[in-house]
């Protein structure tokens, strides 16, 4: 089952713009954030995916028409105890995927909390997607599709149900985000990034709403 559907890879050096975006995954512990990233980046699924402590970082590139979109993905730890670390990761992010587990209502409530926090504290132009993960467990569903859909519409979020296990909609959600991100500032190759995440307490202005360089 694992790895049958590999993730999209950059298909050679196409003449086009290259955009670089910072994307963060948020959501209650064990909803499958790391699994989604692993599926997207390496086309794999580990049943015994280790829990995330602090955060993990990966990158993946997708091609969209003539644009190459490079995601810098920050996968965070879900436990409430690590909440205080989250701002360090979502600060300056252009996109966020807030994940919940469709078989667990509490994780949906927690997802709403994250959305609220992002709307208040993250960059104003941030693209937020809501992922109802573990869609393969539909027989144990506790969060109705319509319920999540309605919530997403109210808050103008992208909403897709995914399964990291079967790979359903995993590439799709990242592509949908890539489509929605502004790529207006013209093409050109990326500059090498200047530094990692800024960790000081002041809000960094560097890449507010930014994208293509």
């Amino acid at each position, binding site marked *: 089952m694992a790895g049958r559907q590999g993730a999209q890879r950059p298909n050679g050096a196409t003449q086009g713009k290259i955009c670089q975006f910072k994307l963060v995954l948020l959501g209650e512990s064990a909803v499958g954030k790391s699994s989604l990233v692993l599926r997207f980046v390496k086309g794999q699924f580990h049943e015994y995916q280790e829990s995330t*402590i602090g955060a*993990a970082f990966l990158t993946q590139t997708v091609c969209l028409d003539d644009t190459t979109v490079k995601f810098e993905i920050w996968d965070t730890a879900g*436990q409430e105890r690590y909440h205080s670390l989250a701002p360090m990761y979502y600060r300056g992010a252009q996109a966020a995927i807030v994940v919940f587990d469709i078989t667990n209502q509490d994780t949906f409530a927690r997802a709403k909390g994250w959305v609220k926090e992002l709307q208040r504290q993250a960059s104003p132009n941030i693209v937020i997607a809501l992922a109802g993960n573990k869609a393969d467990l539909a027989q144990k569903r506790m969060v109705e599709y319509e319920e999540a859909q309605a919530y997403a519409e109210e808050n103008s979020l992208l909403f897709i149900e995914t399964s990291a296990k079967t790979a359903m909609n995993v590439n799709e959600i990242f592509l949908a985000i890539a489509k929605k991100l502004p790529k207006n500032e013209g093409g050109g190759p990326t500059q090498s990034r200047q*530094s990692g995440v800024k*960790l000081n307490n002041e809000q960094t202005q560097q890449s507010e709403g930014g994208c293509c360089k």
Partner: protein
Amino acid sequence: MTELGKADFGLTTFFAKSHPNDKCGANGLPLTPNSIKVLGRFQRLKAVSHPNLCNYLDVARGKHERLMVVAEHYRHCLRSTAKSGKYTNEELFIELAFGIVSGLAHLDRIGITHRNLSQSNILLDHQGKVKLSEYGMYYMTEDGTSVAFPIGNHKYLAPEALGLGPAVIEDHTDSDATLTVPCGPKTDVWSIGLILMEILSIPYKNGFRLFSADGRCKDLELPVFGENGYSKEYLESDHLSLRSMEEVYYLWRLAGGDLVGALKKEGLTKSKPPIHLLPYYSTNEGEVFGQTRDRAELLDSTVVILSQEQLRQRLSEIDETAYYPLLEDEQSQVTSSLPTSPSSNDLSETANLPLVIREKDIEYQFHRIILYERLLKGYPYTRGHIWKEARVDIPPLVRAHVWGALLEIEGDIYARYDEIDKETPTQTDRQIEVDIPRCHQYHELLSSPAAHGKFKRVLKAWVVSHPQYVYWQGLDSLCAPFLALNFNNEALAYSCLSAFIPKYLHKFFLKDNSAVIQGKLFRLQEYLPVFSHLITFHDPELGNHLDGIGFIPDLYAIPWFLTMYAHVFPLHKIVHLWDTLLLGNSSFPLCIGVAILSQLRSQLLSFGFNECILLFSDMPEIDIQRCVQDSIKIFCNTPKSATYRQHARPPKKAKKEESRPNISYYSRDYNEQPSSELSMEPIPVEELKTEKCPRISAEDLIELGELSGPSHTKSPTKRKQNSKPMLLVIDVRNQEDFAKGSIPNSINIPFPTAFSPEGDLNPCSAVTSLNLHKVQVKVVVGSRGRNATNFAIELVRLGYQKVCVLHKGIDVLRSTNILTVPPVDL
């Protein structure tokens, strides 16, 4: 621990029921293989010990859900012995019955039902004493549900057991629960009755019956208790037989003992060519037809006796005194750890070989195990000696207890653990439950349901018994090594975890009441900058590079420190790392971090931010032994105040010092020692973060610089005569101040004129002298203000290593009589 005596090791094999390929658990994830379930349940059997029960020693998984069980074994069983009519003797018969009942009564006490009793698994040892075997089959297979064959000899099974039919239900339903009602001890009572009846009533081969008077004298030639069974003299010359069964079995494996090989030799693994195993028909969904396994193959009742020949051969050269090593000589001096007598020659040479080789060297392990086993018997009195030996290495067989000793576990840990409520649901349960099935699950033992249960209990016990702390993700990883080592001893696993956390992660798991402390975990706020300083101190080039690309420890090192590397390495590496970690103080983990970076140095130096961070998103292969050695080096080359953290554990009552005579001053925690105005003191985190170098206390300066001063030094270091000084003091005050009084042998490079506009050091004699001291610790000394700090930052930028700043500057030394007027420079 039961002595080996004359027991054999018996090997049996069977297959666990395999799951259909397409089946998933309720969480959508693959089902735990039944062999893993059995493996987990089996562990408890290893702890069963009773004179009438055979000890279980080991279980191993083979291909295709095969399980191999090793247990104490005897060549005589009731079936063979009874044929001779031995039990026509009423006394012997009663003795036999009593033996069986005693064994079963013990099983009943610990809640295990035999349900597999038959004449062939009631074994008799050399004295004719009853030794029940195979009593764990029903238990380890979870009342037979993990196997696809019936357990128990139908001849002796109780009606209620037979009435249930075989426990196997070919369940293609989704529910895992089999509807079997487990059998209780009464089933066993029925079986004893039948077996004893049979012995009393069944005609023997030679045709006489018990209650007939004739032929009794035929017993006479049979072995009778005390005659040619047990012989004290024999045992006395066979020292190995006095060692514990577990130990001998461990050595047996080291001597090349191989379970699969033994089965093959006996023809018990019939390997079919794989093509014969293919199903005849398979659907797209993965359902297969046409290859059902022959049930008769699933269980083989043969017991293969594992020959001890090879082991005894390997140990035959060992002098018998080696079985009884001398721990202390007349002066009650701790004697050297490794035998140097000609018989057991050059083991001290073996001690220098790589750890993995030492662990496979049977002779070496033999000596080490015996030594440790004796030391552990004397614990806590022998604590100092154990510490000393642990610096050499720790044999895997005794690691669990040695760790307990190093963590200074004492007292009635069982009562304490029993008292803790591990059952009542709490808020933390969900997190614990989702973490456990993700924690070190490649490990056979830890992935079993039995392990999950224990895991949960130990973690809950810790959370409940430490109300000031909370469960953090990562605590599961910390617990895993202790649980894996003490699988049958939750209380010790719990005690070790409880002792480990305050030692290395003091207050890390504190309830974080002010929910968001901007951007950081509270304790790590101090820990991580100190780590940065340490990197820079030892490897400024790397430190500069990582700083320059923004690859700061916050991004990669949180799981390192929060779990003491238990989240980032596999268990077999963690144990080796922790073998040493446990000997160091709470600053040692920082040194491990530097050692890891230095192992990856060339890659890191050539990498940019993204590559660096990707490198650590999956911990790269690290040579642990090298890492351990490097850490020790780094540790010894770091002034102790340089890793000072105000949040490290506060001083403990010094009661235990005297029993750890051999601990170097490095293994003691800085905070555990008396402090004075010359010591380190808390530095605000914000200030720490603006600095690049560690600070050194005046005390350390005096100590390492061998400056005469107050006599209350903390370390009993004996420095070699006429060795080079350990450090160079760089005074950055202006010449006037310097001339009025300065530290002997210090050089003066006034900060304002030190650097050229290009940022290089302006050449002068002091700079020449600085360049001659590349490897020494460089202590930058200023007065008030930031000159010293800034100077140090510049030195680091220029690539000078081991730069640190004197905490509180020159003024701190005014109260001492160290400062002198320097000789006029020519």
